[in-house]
């Protein structure tokens, strides 16, 4: 179970506003997060990962307190180890596809399997600049999965994939999520496309 209760001041073009979310996510659930641009969807994911600090709040993941503004507890992202798929992919330009995965894990069997899932086996010696947008996005997903995260945070993870590739990847991811027992939060601008994958939804306005 993941319990989140946070409050964060946001600066937007429309002025200042408060992002306030209180919600429990059952272990193993897959939740789509949607809402208008600038609502704070990405900030919400970054708060959970420990990359952004809220003014106030508490995050408890599977019984471990990650954040408690009252007691002053705030685990760094390195301790939280939440898998994170960034909207801009955040791939490392100096590393090849394989090196990205080797940077995250030393389990070669797992790397081989991930490469197969992402259909990147033949491109494993290529650097991101030589990959298409869709290939880069798949690599970003594989890198986040490489650490076998119990909590996976995905920010627009399928936006650059064609319909066929998306379907194939989602089918594979379903199996992986179940196998890892991961709880998954997916930010999307197109909630309908994730109906098949997700078990619940969260609207951030």
């Amino acid at each position: 179970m993941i319990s989140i209760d946070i409050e964060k001041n946001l600066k937007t073009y429309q002025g200042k506003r408060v992002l306030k979310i209180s919600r429990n996510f059952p272990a193993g659930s897959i939740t789509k997060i949607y809402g208008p641009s600038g609502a704070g969807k990405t900030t919400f994911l970054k708060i959970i990962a420990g990359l952004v600090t809220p003014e106030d709040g508490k995050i408890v993941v599977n019984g471990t307190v990650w954040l408690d503004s009252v007691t002053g507890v705030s685990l760094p992202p390195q301790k939280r180890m939440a898998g994170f798929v960034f909207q801009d992919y955040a791939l490392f330009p100096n590393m090849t596809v394989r090196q990205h995965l080797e940077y995250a894990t030393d389990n070669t069997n797992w790397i081989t399997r991930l490469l197969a899932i992402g259909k990147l086996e033949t491109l494993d010696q290529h650097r991101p600049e030589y990959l298409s947008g869709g290939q880069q996005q798949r690599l970003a997903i594989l890198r986040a999965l490489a650490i076998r995260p119990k909590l996976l945070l995905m920010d627009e993870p399928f936006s650059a994939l064609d319909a066929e590739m998306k379907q194939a990847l989602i089918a594979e991811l379903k199996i992986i999520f179940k196998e890892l027992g991961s709880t998954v939060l997916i930010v999307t601008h197109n909630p309908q496309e994730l109906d098949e994958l997700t078990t619940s939804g969260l609207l951030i306005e």
Partner: protein
Amino acid sequence: MTDLSPIWLTLKLAAITTLLLLIIGLPVAWWLSRGRSVIKTIIEAIITMPLVLPPSVLGFYLLLAFSPQRGVGKWLQQTFDVQFVFSFKGLVLASFIYSMPFMIAPVKSALQQLPTTLAQASYTLGKTRWQTFIKVLLPNIKPSLFTASVLTFAHTLGEFGVVLMIGGSIPNVTRVASIAVYDSVERMDYASANTYSLILLCITFIMVISVFLFNKYQAKSPLD
């Protein structure tokens, strides 16, 4: 036959200064690149000062600060038997301070231009700040790192005022090439002055052109 020891001394000084600035300047540049504070602004201003300060002014204050007759210089002499004035160590210290902006400013700027999500992605994979700096950030600012190193090296080759003030012109100890050129002209020995000048000119030209070539190669489009 022209005495080439000032050339070797200059190259040794430039190499040591560049190495020290790589070791100490890179973490400083990294620290400065992350966030803003009053202390960081003040330190950055101090680091940038040698760019606008006349070298003789910097040399003068270093001479006063490290004079064995007073203050820090006296304490260093009495406690550690170390003397910076009129010694090679003094040249290294002066060159280090004088060349700091050439190393730190471009590296800091390059680090700031990297997307913040690069470091964030590394942290979420469990990597420490240091691992992220070494494995992700530094390799992705290679052109700037190379440019900063070459500029630091080349700038040290050309130092005159600051090294003259703190080091004087002691053969094989502090008489670097730029000072040897000046001494030779004063002695009307234009042949030696020309030899030193020509060697410095060639070395500097090769270094600057290598920066342009390296950066051109790095910026090459994958479609070329």
